C-alpha cells in the first residue's frame, strides 16, 4: 500500500501509463456472445481485469402486473457485484451503489431498444460482475448490449461506452483502479449510441475545467467507437464457426 504522502507516477514522460498503455488506449477487451444456453440472450466480457456475465430474458409477460406499462416494454436491469469481485468481501445485499447503477444502466439500454413494440411486457437484464477493477458499469453496459442483440430484441443501435477521466494531471481513457484512486482523480463513465453519437449514460465524479471536459468527451466518444467494433465482431463471430450438436444416445 502506498503511504498517504507518497505520490505514484501514473503517466511517465513518454506518455506511458503504469500498465504500458498510452493515454488514449483502452485495456484489452474480449467479448463472447451466447454463453448461457438457457437464456434468450447472453454475453461474457473480459476487459482488463473486469469480468462480467450478462443474461437477457424476454420480452415476456410483465409481472407483478402493477409494474406493466401499457405503452412500452419495461426494462428490468439488475447490476450485481459478486461477493468475491472486490478485494474485501462484499456484502451480497444490493447496496445503494448497485441499485443506482441498475437504474442508470437500464435507462441507457432502454434508449437503444424499440420498447414501444412490446407493450405490457418486461425485458430482464442481469449483469453479474465476477471480477472488478474500475469501470465495471460501462463494462456491464457493453456486455448487456451484446446480450440484447444476441436475444434478437429489435434495437436502434448497440450501446458502447468507456470510462474517461483525469489522474495525475493527465486526461486518460479507461482508467484502472490505481488511476481512479489518484488524489486528483476525475471519473466520467459515459455510454453512447455509436451511430448517432447520442449520449445515453454520463456520470461524473470530480472537477474538470471546461477545456478539459471538451477534450475528455471527445476522447471518450472515440474510445467508445473502438469498443463498438469489438462488440460487432463478437456478435458476428458466433456465426462463423458452427458446430453441430450431437444428440445423446
Amino acid at each position, binding site marked *: 500500500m502506498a503511504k498517504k504522502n507518497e505520490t505514484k507516477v501514473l503517466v511517465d514522460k513518454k506518455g506511458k501509463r503504469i500498465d504500458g498503455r498510452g493515454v488514449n488506449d483502452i485495456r484489452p477487451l474480449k467479448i463472447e456472445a451466447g454463453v448461457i444456453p438457457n437464456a434468450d440472450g447472453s454475453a461474457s466480457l473480459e476487459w482488463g481485469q473486469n469480468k462480467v456475465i450478462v443474461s437477457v430474458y424476454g420480452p415476456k409477460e410483465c409481472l407483478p402486473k402493477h409494474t406493466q406499462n401499457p405503452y412500452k416494454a419495461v426494462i428490468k436491469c439488475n447490476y450485481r457485484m459478486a461477493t468475491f469481485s472486490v478485494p474485501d468481501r462484499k456484502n451480497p445485499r444490493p447496496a445503494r451503489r448497485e441499485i443506482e447503477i441498475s437504474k442508470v444502466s437500464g435507462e441507457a439500454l432502454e434508449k437503444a431498444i424499440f420498447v414501444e413494440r412490446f407493450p405490457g411486457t418486461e425485458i430482464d437484464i442481469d449483469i453479474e460482475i465476477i471480477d472488478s477493477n474500475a469501470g465495471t458499469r460501462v463494462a456491464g453496459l457493453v456486455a448487456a448490449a451484446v446480450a440484447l442483440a444476441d436475444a434478437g430484441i*429489435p434495437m*436502434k443501435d*448497440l450501446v458502447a461506452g468507456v470510462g474517461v477521466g483525469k489522474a495525475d494531471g493527465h486526461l486518460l481513457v479507461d482508467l484502472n483502479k490505481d488511476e481512479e484512486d489518484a488524489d486528483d482523480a476525475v471519473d466520467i463513465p459515459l455510454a453512447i449510441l455509436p451511430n*448517432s453519437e447520442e449520449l445515453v449514460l454520463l456520470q461524473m465524479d470530480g472537477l474538470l475545467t471546461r477545456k478539459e471536459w471538451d477534450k475528455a468527451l471527445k476522447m471518450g466518444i472515440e474510445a467508445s467507437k473502438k469498443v463498438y467494433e469489438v462488440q460487432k465482431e463478437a456478435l458476428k463471430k458466433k456465426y462463423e464457426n*458452427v458446430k*453441430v*450438436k450431437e444428440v445423446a444416445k
Partner: protein
Amino acid sequence: MKRIVVPGELITDKRKKTGSHVFVREGKIYSEVIGLANDEGEYASVVPLEGSYIPMRNDLIVGVVSGEKFSGYDVGINTLYPTYLSKKEIRDRLKVGSILSAKIRDIDERREVDIENIRVLYDGEIITVSPVKVPRIIGREGSMLNVLKDGTGSSIIVGRNGWIWAKGGNIPLLIESINKIESEAHTANLTNKMEEFLSKKAGKKVNAPKAKEEKAPKMEDKNVDKKDEMIEDEKGDLIG
C-alpha cells in the same frame, strides 16, 4: 452478397423500399436485429438469426394445452400469453398436455391471439427450435421438410411458433437433423447437405419429391414461400 449485420448497422444509403426488420433514420436504412442483410432487389430487408415468435395472422402453429377451465382450455403457443380455446369449438375432450395444431385467426395489440382450424394431434412429441429458423426447416416450397420426412419416415407438422410435432419413424435422427439445420441455418445449400447427411445416416438414398406434399399445410406454405425468397435464390445455393 448477403452479409451478417448487427443492430444499428447500415444496410444501404440508397432509396429503397423497407422490408422486414429494418428502420430508416435520416434517409438511410439500418438493421434492427442481428441477421442477414439483403439489399440487392427492390427491398432492403434483414432475415433475423435470433428472436422470439411474433404471431401473425394465418400462421399455422402447434400448441399444448396448459390448463382447463369450466368452458374451455388455456393453450400454450410459445408467445407471451396462452390463448383460450372454447370447448364448443372442438368435439374431443382434451387434457393438460394435449397437443393440437391451429391457425391464427386474429391478434390484438397486446399480441394475444385467437385460433381456428383446430386439429388435435394424438401421441407424437414436440421438438422445439428457434422460431426464426422455422423457414429453413420447411425450405423452399417445403423441400427441406420433404427431405426430413423421407429420411426419417416420421409425420411432421411444423408450427411457425418454433414447435414441431413429430410422430413415428426415426425420431432421434429427426432431432439430430433439426439440430443440424438450426445450427447451420445461415449457411448455403442446406437442403442438399441434409440430403447427404440423411442418406448416410438412414442408409438409403434420400430424394425429396419436388412436388408439394399435401400433408404440408397449405396456408403455412404460402407464408413461408414469401419469407423464404429472401433466404434462397432460384438455384437455392445462396447463403441464407
